[in-house]
């Protein structure tokens, strides 16, 4: 669970994120009543969230805590996005495939507050991981998911610290392509993954 976003560290890291000019536009934090304006506002929020998460290497957003991040609060102009509007934004990202709702870490967390953010799609992660396997000569070796995300060889990689759910989706892509196979231990647990490299 160490890979789950910890809001404290991310909010401190996020201060250097270069916010776009729209972030200083006060009405950006009010859901626009005009439907066309709202559509464009949604897509601006979508891009901002993706850029912010990519910059800060955030894999998941839990709205219960994220609502306090500077992403949704511009303290310079005292404007913040309402929780219900945040949900609408994430909903729209989910529809576009840029995010996916997940059940929160607590068991009784209300639905649709926690989402995986795909600042890269699983297919893209799959390609990046496959290239990394090739270039580091790890073909035909067995790696644990932890080694991929946190091992010494992935230190400078873009997928460093990747959320296990996203990693698993990327691996599924590679498995479908016949480039990887999940290895199970004697007790049936998934122990690691073997890569065959691209044909």
């Amino acid at each position: 669970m160490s890979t789950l976003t910890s809001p404290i560290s991310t909010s401190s890291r996020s201060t250097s994120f270069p916010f776009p000019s729209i972030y200083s536009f006060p009405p950006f934090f009010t859901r626009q009543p005009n439907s066309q304006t709202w559509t464009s506002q949604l897509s601006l929020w979508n891009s901002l969230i993706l850029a912010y998460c990519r910059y800060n290497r955030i894999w998941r957003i839990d709205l219960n805590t994220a609502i306090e991040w500077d992403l949704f609060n511009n303290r310079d102009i005292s404007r913040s996005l309402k929780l219900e509007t945040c949900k609408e934004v994430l909903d729209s990202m989910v529809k576009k495939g840029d995010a996916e709702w997940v059940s929160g870490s607590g068991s009784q967390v209300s639905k649709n507050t926690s989402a995986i953010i795909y600042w890269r799609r699983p297919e893209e992660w799959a390609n990046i991981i496959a290239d990394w396997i090739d270039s580091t000569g790890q073909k035909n070796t067995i790696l644990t998911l932890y080694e991929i995300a946190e091992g010494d060889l992935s230190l400078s990689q873009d997928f460093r610290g990747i959320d296990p759910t996203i990693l698993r989706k990327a691996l599924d892509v590679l498995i479908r392509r016949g480039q990887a196979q999940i290895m199970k231990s004697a007790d049936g647990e998934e122990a690691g993954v073997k890569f065959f490299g691209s044909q």
Partner: protein
Amino acid sequence: MAMRRGVGLAAFDKHQRTAQQYSDLGSTILQTHISELTDQLLTFQAALKKFAQSHADEIRSDPVFRSEFVKMCSAIGVDPLASSSANKKGSFWAELLGSDVNDFFFELAVRIIEICRRTRDVNGGLMLVEDVKGRINSVPGRPPVSQEDIVRAVNTLAPLGHGFGIVRLANKDFIRSVPQELSRDQAVAIEATQAMGYISVPILRDNLTWETARCIAVLDDLVASGLVWVDEQARPKEYWTPSWIRQ
């Protein structure tokens, strides 16, 4: 004396002859004039062509030079962009410069349309020429364009109908890319946004001495047209022009 006075029947003949001679002389002079003018015009056109061709690069790449060149053409009554020529070959300009400068403005017009189309949902189809210029010039590897170029390019779109045009509000040129015309109240309200970026019911009421109902009506109209964005976290609500979003 009698001869000089030209009295008698013969005088009529002579008078006619004289008139004929004058007329002939007149048309000869006129002809000479026309051919001289034609010569001059041809010489001038050749000179202009030569000038334009030898400076085509500068005309295309230097906004100041281009502007001066266009001014020079206008001064002597040549509209470089007159495209509705009866001449099948296209405009005088196109003929003169081949595919150079004429295309420059049409290509620019296409880029402007593209920018206006892409930003229409954000700004309701009203965009500062300055902002369009900023976007165009932010693309590296292209010669810079001036606001004057943009206005000129937009004006070439006039024959396409009422979709595109330049609107002047608060001493700034805007490109309007939706057919809908601004009402007088809307135009005045948009002008007012240029001072601080936003307007509100009290701002309109106090500065324009409008009734509250009239202020509300025009603000609602502007929101409905997508021309302003509402900030409900301000007290009272503020209505912001998207041209305030700086890149």
